[in-house]
């Protein structure tokens, strides 16, 4: 009784921590909470698992019990039968192996593959400073030059043609910056438009041929008929994407303009183009334009298609951006005005950054849609991946192959579209300003 500390019913040391009950930790808890939290949930989970099993048990053997080395569908089937037994249905990936380069480059001459490769790497370099603002701003100079470089690399020909086009732009810029002093802003703007056009129409041709005779610098020309495969999809898709954003911004601003004619033109353009299916525009590009132009005129089919795709995407882009503009509170416009900024300054510094940020998910959706829409060109006889798959099936050795080609094409498209989608999520997180 005197020394209570010796009493055996009082603990002197802490108990060690025990692990949580098995049902409350790790994978079992996760299963219990997420898959089997109630009886209906448990039933649905089991059904879903069974469905997944059902699909995979058919698809996986097909994908993996396959043949990579055969040279025709018949050989494929024989090889699969020999390796995996009678009655096995396996994929014939050999067609992808044999036609891989064709699916990527179309009929582009194989000894010149370095040119589209270089153009593709250049594209990544040119896009990098636009996509990631931590990179040095000087890289934008390369971005501005890149379209001409890519055009020259892909189509080849004399270096002086793209050079003349750049010169035209430079002349226009010079006119725009130097002339206001003499003929006023409006005059300079008109001059900035007229000078390059006049230069291209009148001087560029003779000048280019003159330079060509002095310094014959050029690449072996490759005609558009040789373009195909994913190269064609990326070419049309990226050009459409890159061009449609600025045009779309201008159209969206024009639609909100107080200037009657500008507004009417923008609304008319947007509503007309949006009201017409893309495939119709492609048919116009491939067939109707030929009737309008003088006989003997050759206007490159890929160029025609790119223009139509760009116009189509611009109209959608304009509406997406208008949605962003509409979401901005009026106070932002009034705040910009109260700072004494003029229209272009307030648009560039205050309105557009916010409107574009709001529109990012829709813009990227439009881009992804546009990129996938490029396969429609197979309807007008261009050999994009889908068009090529028809052509490959027309080879007697591969006739009858369907899922392998479509599966491969789908996989590549998924990689591109998924990357775009992930980038847009990164951009949204980066631009997140509300805390």
């Amino acid at each position, binding site marked *: 009784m005197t020394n209570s500390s010796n009493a055996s019913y009082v603990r002197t040391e802490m108990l060690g921590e025990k692990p949580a009950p098995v049902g409350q930790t790790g994978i079992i808890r996760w299963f219990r909470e997420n898959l089997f939290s109630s009886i209906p949930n448990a039933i649905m989970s089991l059904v879903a698992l069974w469905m997944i099993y059902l699909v995979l048990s058919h698809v996986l053997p097909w994908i993996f019990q396959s043949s990579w080395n055969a040279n025709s569908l018949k050989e494929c089937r024989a090889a699969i039968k020999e390796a995996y037994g009678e009655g096995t249905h396996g994929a014939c990936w050999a067609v992808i192996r044999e036609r891989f380069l064709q699916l990527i480059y179309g009929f582009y001459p194989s000894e010149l593959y370095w040119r589209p490769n270089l153009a593709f790497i250049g594209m990544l370099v040119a896009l990098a400073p636009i996509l990631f603002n931590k990179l040095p701003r000087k890289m934008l100079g390369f971005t501005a030059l890149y379209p001409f470089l890519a055009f020259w690399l*892909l189509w080849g020909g004399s270096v002086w043609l*793209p050079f003349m086009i750049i010169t*035209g732009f430079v002349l226009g810029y010079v006119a725009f910056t130097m002339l206001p002093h003499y003929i006023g802003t409006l005059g300079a703007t008109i001059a900035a438009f007229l000078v390059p056009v006049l230069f291209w*129409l009148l001087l560029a041709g003779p000048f280019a041929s003159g330079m060509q005779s002095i310094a014959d610098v050029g690449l072996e020309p490759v005609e558009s*008929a040789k373009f195909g495969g994913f190269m064609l999809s990326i070419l049309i898709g990226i050009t459409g994407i890159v061009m449609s954003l600025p045009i779309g911004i201008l159209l969206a601003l024009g639609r909100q303009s107080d200037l009657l004619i500008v507004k009417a033109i923008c609304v008319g353009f947007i509503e007309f183009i949006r009201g017409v299916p893309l495939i119709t525009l492609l048919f116009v590009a491939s067939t109707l334009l030929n009737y309008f132009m003088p006989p003997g005129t050759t206007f490159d089919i890929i160029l025609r298609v790119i223009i139509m795709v760009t116009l189509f995407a611009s109209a959608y882009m304009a509406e997406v951006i208008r949605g962003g503009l509409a979401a901005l509170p009026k106070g932002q416009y009034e705040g910009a005005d109260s700072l004494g900024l003029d229209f272009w300054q307030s648009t560039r510094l205050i309105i557009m950054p916010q409107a574009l940020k709001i529109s990012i998910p829709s813009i990227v959706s439009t881009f992804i849609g546009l990129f996938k829409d490029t396969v429609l060109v197979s309807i007008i006889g261009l050999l994009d991946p889908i068009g090529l798959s028809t052509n490959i*099936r*027309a080879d*007697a050795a591969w006739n009858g192959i369907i899922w392998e080609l479509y599966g491969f094409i789908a996989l590549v498209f998924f990689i591109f579209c998924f990357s775009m989608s992930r980038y847009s999520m990164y951009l949204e997180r980066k631009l997140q300003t509300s805390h």
Partner: protein
Amino acid sequence: MKKSAFLGTAVAATLVAGASFAGTLEDVKAKGHVQCGVSTGLVGFAAADANGNWDGFDVSVCRALAAAVLGDPQAVKFTPTTGKTRFTALASGEVDVLARNTTWTFSRDVDLKFTFIGVNYYDGQGFMVPKALGVSSAKDLDGATVCIQTGTTTELNLADFFRTNNISYEPVPIETNAEAQAQYLAGACDVYTTDASGLAATRATFESPAEHTVLPEIISKEPLGPLVRHGDDQWADIVRWTLNALIAAEELGVTSANVKDSAMSAGKNPEVNRLLGTEGNLGEMLGLSADWAKNAIAAGGNYGEIFERNIGEKTAIGISRGLNAQWTNGGLLYTPPFR
């Protein structure tokens, strides 16, 4: 690409817009190649291999034409056309000749203003059914589901056939041959109908072709042939007689193997001599060199050789000559005389 290309081409287009539009033969000679419209891909008739070289039954006509006009079977560029773009491509001058298994019909010839220069393949619409169905005649197909490509003459022929025989069917509309193959094999339809050559090619790709049979009925006439624009009769003559030269060569026993020897000096058969240019001046009348037909035959052989190599019985497609035999063998190939 991008703005540069647009402007560059706009400039180029403006510059060449003033060029005059001469006859097709002069144009072809000036640009150094024949622009030939072909299918985007049809087994045996037109397909590009892994290196991008085109080959096939229709393609051979183009190569023979290039050899006849320019002396080089490789001097031909191919424009893949779909069923929807083929006629505008020809009408607008994008291609010089269309060799894309196109059926010669009244309205295409007269209303669309094309000149069909002959028939290089006599086709007809047939039916393929699984043997398990136990059908031996198309007239037993009452109530069948039929896979059919939309927007083609086959659709109309099918309706006509079932109506005249007073039996019913249920169409399963599909867009491409590949889709039809998949649907038919999956059992989505009892019958697949398209041109008999297409049926043979499709059946050849099945894992077990023996389980499927092509019914004996051919319900339509599909004379397939190359065509050119109205209004340039000289060019039409060149294409027509190039095809005729290939057919005549088979009839006269001129092959790619012996054409060089036969063309060296005049032989015993005066028609062979006229064909190969060792006698008379047929080439000159066409505006071509005297050895035009020799070049055309040397390009890919005579009609029979082209047939056997691309779609004949020894190939995977395995089509017998049938209607496409020489008239001397009970077929329909009958070329007017070379004199």
